């Protein structure tokens, strides 16, 4: 890792912290909106109007009232009247099981749906992407070598950890996407359930996709799926939590390891998810999360010779085509963006199969 997890980093990172302090001060000065009892700010009603159109299920549905947002633990809060200054979270990258800042020392401001500053996220660089691939590769043999039962239990543990942080996730996506509390709860619950769904797959996918093949001759012939290796994932920007879980869980359930580029607009839920992953017995490096500009990072992942698969779900069609061309050089397994995704629908197995190889073993039968 080029940057130690808790290295304050070069001056730009320090200035990022200062900038955040300034933003917080101005937020506090604005003092807008009625307070919910916990002292957290309520999301502005106009937050439902999003800066860019969202095609994902996590966007507020037309006609659905944005409703009073619930307060959450993870959203920067203003100082309560009593005078205590809340301690805010620094959002960093997640790589190899640690939380380093970008080696570039850069960050970018993340705003809520209404344009309010929420936090600064690390602006990952080409070198961060490179380091993430190294972390994912070194985790691959251990992760794919674990028993399917063990992988399933760890994925279930992720669900347990997420459930315990539901309020924080709901507050974050409510703030980010300007949706109502009920809707946010629904999306968080669906994201938790998605881990449970995939927790059941590691020891079954081989039973569903594998086969004993009746070849003509005295041979034992068995086909089984195996993970492709390191998969780079462009997470869907419109669905920062449920969409993210829906693309990451199937990739790692089958034994791959992942380098995930979180949606640029709303990266904070991905980093909170990373905290759940880091406390779920998931080995470091199995999931690595980068925040930043997809346009800056993705080409390097698409062309990286040590990346085996590329999930382009979060790319727009034009970018996706360009990245797919780049990926062709090393014949990566590519999952193209599927257009409008209904993230609440039954996920099936179509997000696991693209990153599985089929291995067939022949062996003679005779005395």
């Amino acid at each position, binding site marked *: 890792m080029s940057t130690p997890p808790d290295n304050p980093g070069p001056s730009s990172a320090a200035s990022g912290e200062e900038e955040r302090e300034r933003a917080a001060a101005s937020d506090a000065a604005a003092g807008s909106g009625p307070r919910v009892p916990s002292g957290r700010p309520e999301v502005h009603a106009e937050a439902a109007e999003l800066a860019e159109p969202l095609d994902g299920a996590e966007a507020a549905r037309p006609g659905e009232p944005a409703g009073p947002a619930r307060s959450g633990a993870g959203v920067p809060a203003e100082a309560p009247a009593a005078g205590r200054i809340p301690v805010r979270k620094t959002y960093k990258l997640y790589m190899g099981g640690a939380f380093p800042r970008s080696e570039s020392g850069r960050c970018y401001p993340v705003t809520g749906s209404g344009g309010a500053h929420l936090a600064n996220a690390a602006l990952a660089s080409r070198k961060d992407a490179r380091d993430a691939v190294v972390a994912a590769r070194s985790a691959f043999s251990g992760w794919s070598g674990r028993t399917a*039962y063990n992988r399933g239990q760890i994925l279930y543990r992720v669900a347990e950890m997420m459930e315990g942080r539901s309020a924080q996730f709901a507050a974050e996506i409510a703030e980010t996407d300007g949706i109502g509390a009920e809707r946010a709860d629904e999306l968080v619950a669906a994201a938790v359930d998605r881990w449970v769904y995939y*927790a*059941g797959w590691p*020891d079954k996918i081989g*039973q569903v996709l594998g086969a004993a093949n009746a070849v003509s001759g005295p041979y034992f012939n068995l086909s089984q799926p195996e993970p492709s290796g390191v998969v780079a994932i462009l997470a869907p920007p419109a669905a920062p939590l449920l969409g993210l879980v829906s693309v990451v869980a199937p990739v790692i359930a089958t034994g791959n390891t992942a380098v995930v580029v979180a949606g640029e607009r709303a990266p904070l839920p991905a980093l909170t998810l990373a905290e759940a992953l880091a406390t779920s017995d998931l080995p470091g490096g199995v999931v690595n999360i980068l925040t930043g500009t997809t346009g800056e990072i993705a080409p390097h992942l698409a062309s990286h010779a040590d990346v085996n698969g590329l999930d382009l779900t979060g790319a727009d069609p034009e970018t996706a085509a360009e990245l797919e061309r780049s990926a062709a050089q090393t014949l990566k397994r590519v999952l193209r963006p599927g257009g409008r995704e209904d993230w609440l629908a039954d996920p099936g197995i179509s997000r696991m199969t693209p990153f599985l190889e089929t291995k067939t073993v022949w*062996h003679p*039968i*005779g*005395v």
Partner: protein
Amino acid sequence: MEEQADPIFEYAPAPESRAVVRLRSSYELFIDGEFTPAESGERMATLNPADEEHLAQVSVAGEPDVDRAVAAARRAFEGAWGAMPGAERGKYLFRIARILQERARELAVLETLDNGKPIKETRDVDIPMVAAYFFYHAGWADKLDYAGMGPAPRPVGVAAQVIPWNFPLLMLAWKIAPALAAGNTVVLKPAETTPLSALVFAEICQETGLPPGVVNILTGAGATGRSLVGHPGADKVAFTGSTAVGREIARSVAGTDKRLTLELGGKGANIVYDDAALDQAVEGVVSGIFFNQGHVCCAGSRLLVQESVADELLERLRARIERLRLGDPLDKNTDIGAINSAEQLERIRELVRAGDEEGAESWSPQCPLPEKGYWFAPTVFTGVTQAHRVAREEIFGPVLSVLTFRTPDEAVAKANNTPYGLSAGVWTEKGSRMLWTAERLRAGVIWSNTFNKFDPASPFGGYKESGYGREGGRHGLEAYLVHAA
């Protein structure tokens, strides 16, 4: 070498604490989510077979209790449970799996007390696998469309399940986990001599908030089992136990609409070729017949060893058996525990007498048996032929019959020369010979260079008179599903 007067390194007793188990003086039936006495008020005692200590009283369910339990299961099936989406159903099974993991040590000690098997086995094998069965099947609850057993899978309904005493909680898991995953409700009867872990499982069902009636536990003896499997409200019957009772059940459901799966006896052959890894083959033979005191339907009770290595293998085998530690099942170093009941001990003795009378040569290590309780020393019969009763009948105890063979064809012919067909083992370093042999063996599970391995993902069940239907794996779901025509 002669016996050492002062052994250099004799292990001191290392008993597992009983404090983790809070035994109650009496236990009731579990019907519709509540513990309830049998209407008749009848009770029976359950003992610790290692010292004949009275453990607790349990209710004996009669026909009215069976009626109540089946009705509760029907209500749950037609109510909350039947309407529940698979994903939510699965969450209850995940919860059960987690609580089983949390209460693992308590269950291990309880199982050892009630069954007599060593704590090493309940702690390291039985209970972890029980949790694994629930975890595995939890994942199927919302994936039944992928099981490949047919289109539009639906549950069968109310399952009547009767299980044996050799793996009390594990057999419960084999029955209940797939049934619930597929959306059925169950009425389960644990064995007469080992009811306690099933009743703690009932407490776990309460702890998970499982809707009432989804799982009902009826304790009792043979009569309870008969009235359960014969109940007209049961849509499906699942039985694990002896071939004789299995036949009786098959007759009783004949002509009805009830579905039936049977997992019955066995006389497994363990074939050791001359190129086998001998030290590991010895381990496999030992675990094949002495694991769980030989109370294993798939035990490798017939050793078929190639003549060219027979002497060497038997020497190593005897040396290894002398190292087995028989005694207090709660001692962490015990390899062989108690025989589960006086009745079973008598059956083992009778068959061993028959072996002696028919001219087979028996050998046991010097092995002092505890004075109280039901005990039988590991026994090896050599000079056994296919005609001997010890080569044909299931002993269900720590008794190994050794036969020899000269060619692979002869090994397969002898292995298959039995009405049973549950399991077999093949020991060879040559892959093609292993596959050749496995292909020809008429048995539901073939272990190669290993023995007595179980996994929730792996189907288990027999050919011929060892029963029909499979438990575990994708294939095990079929018994609990109906499909569009």
